[in-house]
């Protein structure tokens, strides 16, 4: 077992969350199933309990206090159960009680569960990656999760999840961001997005924007976040083009991208648009705000 997470503490934390907000009979059922999984160690018992949890827990978002959010971060940097529902929390709790002596047999059992999982079960499994006992071993599975066209499952891997930034190589990371853009997902919910920005991704995204423009389509404004640090002679004209669109949300995104660039002509663009430029420099415009406005309107 690698030491990236304290399984016992995590189990207790998930239980505490559920106990606060679920019905007594559901909690009783959960404890019974947990005992069975621990004692019998049979993967079939675990699969069945994992599935049947939907009969006892709701898909209502967890209510989480600020303290609990902070505590979640001490268990695992980036772990964000405030984006989880009660059912997936119960499923994750059961998952942490399923143990195997060898990492390989644990991974095999999990893979079988992934292959037979329904939509919500898949969501639960992918979102639980950062608290799993064997994380590195699940990398290929996590990448497989990006190939889905079911957006809620894709989101479980890509959004509000520290796993991709920690484990994906550049190729998989870039594939994830590009697909998130293609599916118009809220990019600001991708964790550690700026740390993993890279010139290859910037180039792919600029090409993508060209392709969309050639077809008479627009691109989502958050795309420029990943281009910003790599603005250069070649692509500065694209940023200028976005500034000329006349669409404020696109313009804000272009200037915010410029603010993360060291390239002098990009800095100059900020100066040339003082009103929006100042709002960028004063951090009144952020990627979160742009993303939220784009997804949900003002």
């Amino acid at each position, binding site marked *: 077992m690698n030491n990236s997470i304290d399984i016992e503490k995590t189990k207790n934390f998930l239980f505490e969350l559920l106990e606060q907000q679920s019905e007594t009979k559901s909690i009783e059922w959960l404890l019974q199933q947990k005992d069975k999984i621990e004692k019998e160690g049979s993967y079939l018992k675990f699969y*069945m309990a994992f599935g049947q949890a*939907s009969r006892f827990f709701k898909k209502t978002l967890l209510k989480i206090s600020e303290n609990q959010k902070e505590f979640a971060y001490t268990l695992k940097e980036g772990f964000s159960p405030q984006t989880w529902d009660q059912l997936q929390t119960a499923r994750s709790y059961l998952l942490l009680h399923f143990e195997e002596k060898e990492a390989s047999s644990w991974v095999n059992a999990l893979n079988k569960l992934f292959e037979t999982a329904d939509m919500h079960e898949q969501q639960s499994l992918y979102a639980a990656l950062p608290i799993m006992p064997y994380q590195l071993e699940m990398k290929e599975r996590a990448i497989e999760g990006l190939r889905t066209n079911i957006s809620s499952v*894709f989101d479980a891997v890509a959004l509000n999840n520290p796993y991709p930034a920690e484990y994906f190589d550049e190729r998989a990371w870039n594939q994830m961001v590009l697909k998130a853009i293609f599916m118009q997902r809220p990019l600001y919910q991708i964790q550690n997005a700026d740390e993993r920005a890279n010139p290859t991704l910037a180039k792919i995204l600029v090409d993508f924007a060209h392709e969309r423009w050639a077809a008479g389509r627009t691109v989502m404004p958050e795309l420029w976040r990943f281009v910003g640090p790599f603005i250069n002679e070649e692509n500065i004209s694209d940023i200028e083009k976005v500034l000329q669109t006349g669409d404020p949300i696109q313009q804000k995104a272009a200037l915010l991208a410029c603010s993360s660039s060291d390239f002098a002509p990009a800095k100059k663009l900020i100066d040339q648009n003082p009103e929006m430029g100042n709002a960028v420099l004063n951090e009144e415009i952020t990627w979160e705000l742009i993303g939220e406005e784009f997804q949900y309107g003002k």
Partner: protein
Amino acid sequence: MEMFIDPHIHVVSRTTDDYEAMRKAGIVAIIEPAFWLGQPRTEVGSFKDYFSTLVGWERFRAKQFGIVHYCTMGLNSKEANNIPLAEEVMELLPLYVGKEGVVAIGEIGYDDQTEAEDRFYRLQLELAKEVNLPVLIHTPHRDKKKGTTRSMDVSEEHGVDPGMVIVDHNNEETVKEVLDRGYWAAFTIYPHTKMGSERMVEIVKQYGPERIIVDSAADWGISDPLAVPKTAALMRKMGIPEEHIRMTCYQNALTAYSQSGQMDELDWLRPEPIDQRQRQFGNSVLRGGQEPKVEGSDFVEN
């Protein structure tokens, strides 16, 4: 708007045009029974992926058109005749019967009424009892009357309550016994081989709406995913009372299958706009941010 349930349709074989038309015609919920695919399967993995599709991709696809998708799980009678494969499928089934939105074991029963079919039918009746799910019986195309009677006899032999069993693909010859014995009697409006809408109207006139269910069983054959709303329209035209139309084209299916605890009217009555594409369900059937088509147009949209 008038609401319909099509409690038997194989939407994996249907196009998005069908989904649009179904929603427009008022279909709010559908049940997709696990069945055969036309081409016989030769590997258990094909069953696994099919079952996963029923609780995964197809459910997602339906949702994008504002239709709630449920399914039934089972080994169909035709493929029960490949015994080694059938045995493997039986080991797989327990993984799927407890999943969300699985509202029955089915469609099971007889095709050629062989010994193997009988064996796997009985095993699945036992499975249904164990997990407390209703049963959907597929009655055979050939030697139908005897096959229907036998299906019910065997079900009773295993102690399954007729109120938990939906007997499908009935006709004028089978309906009386099925109703008299306390079962739900489903009718498949499927051109040429099963029922037509006009005959269906006559049956509702004669037997009333009690425990009668109308479905399309639309699949990869020549069939009609709008069979339920079309039959309802004909019933109205022929003077069948509104309440009887509602019972046979909506309520009875809901009552029968909600015995699973997995189907609830709130699933579609809860106001959740279809067109949430940018929020919860990005586009994937609707690829790359394309706008969902609301009305038909005479050009292909960009």
